[in-house]
């Protein structure tokens, strides 16, 4: 049998079936509507849905911030941030003239093993020597510094310059 003949036979059969059961098919739509549960939406329910949506968006945003802060790279491009790459360190601190050489713990490490710290907001303009302390005992200079000086026992301090606000160092 040809495909076209088969199609014609199928159409004819379906048409005859539809004619025979027309009354049932006509009521089918109403039967389905009656079976559906009553769904009247109240304003309170709608506001609840909006609130839940807002909370979900805020949660996703906060999660994004947290992931961004903890897993993304340290903000080393910022000139107000000191960075040190030391993946194997358990802790890194910075000690400097601006802290009277009191060690301040640094943040990190990030995924690349970078430790970082933002300079204090109230730091005065001037020249400051500093160094990093790895695992509480090992003094390390900052390879990103542009100036270095010899200090006690031929150790090396790094130097940074803080310009007055609005000026380039």
């Amino acid at each position, binding site marked *: 049998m040809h495909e076209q003949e088969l199609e014609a036979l199928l159409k004819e059969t379906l048409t005859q079936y539809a004619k025979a059961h027309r009354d049932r098919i006509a009521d089918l739509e109403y039967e389905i509507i009656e079976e559906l549960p009553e769904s009247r939406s109240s304003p309170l329910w709608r506001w609840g849905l909006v609130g839940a949506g807002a909370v979900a968006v805020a949660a996703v945003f906060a999660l994004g911030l947290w992931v961004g802060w903890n897993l993304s790279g340290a903000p080393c491009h910022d000139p107000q941030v000191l960075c040190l790459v030391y993946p194997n360190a358990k802790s890194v601190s910075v000690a400097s*003239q601006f802290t*009277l*050489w009191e060690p301040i713990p640094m943040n990190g490490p990030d995924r690349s093993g970078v430790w970082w710290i933002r300079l204090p907001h109230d730091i005065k303009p001037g*020249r400051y020597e500093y160094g990093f302390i790895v695992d509480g005992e090992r003094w390390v200079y900052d390879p990103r510094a542009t100036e270095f*000086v010899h*200090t*006690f*026992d031929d150790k090396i*301090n790094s130097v940074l310059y803080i310009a007055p606000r609005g000026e380039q*160092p």
Partner: protein
Amino acid sequence: MRWLISVALVFGLLGGFGGALAQPTPEDVYKCFAELGVSDLQTLQAGFAKGFSDKRITPDTALRLCQRLKQSSAPISLREGVLQIIARALLEELPVTMLVDKAFEGLTKGVPLDVINDDLLKRKMTLSEVKTLLASKGITINLTIRFGPVTLTLTLEAVDTAITEAAGALEDYVRGGGKLDDPNAIKSAVQLRLARNPLIPQTLTAYIEQVVSAAEWAQIAQNIAKRLKNP
């Protein structure tokens, strides 16, 4: 009764905050010196009192230094030595930022106090030589410099910072192995350091470059080298 307790609580909290925010006074510093058990409290008091009055050091910094020295287990003569060097520098009207800073740095790094004292004494001599050199050129507080259209009256902060930076640059140059027979390189190191510090007016830096010769800076560098050879 409840009302009274609330008022007492509020006053107590305010008093606590006030106490936490209060800055140390000179008396707090002298009390710390006495508790340290120093042998010459009079010189220390005279030196630091002058320093507080001249605003070359704050009671807060002095107290923190005293407290750090209290924690040291070194003999009292060495701990007092640090304070005496700074007190004498203050009496001689020298800037003490570099000395105080090196004391804190050495204590944090666990450098023996005899090494710190020796370092401070040598740096104090350098500060004194630089101050004398600049003063011989008339560079002192209240000097008015006229440089083209710019007129500048020097403040204590500007002069002190210039002395500190020039002395620091010379110390760093010699300790870093810089050539002593190259006066121009020595002068360049000093001028670069002065130029990079935002607390020193550019007019003062330019004036120093004009009036202080390379040979004069080189002489101080050679004195530093001699002092470093003789511990």
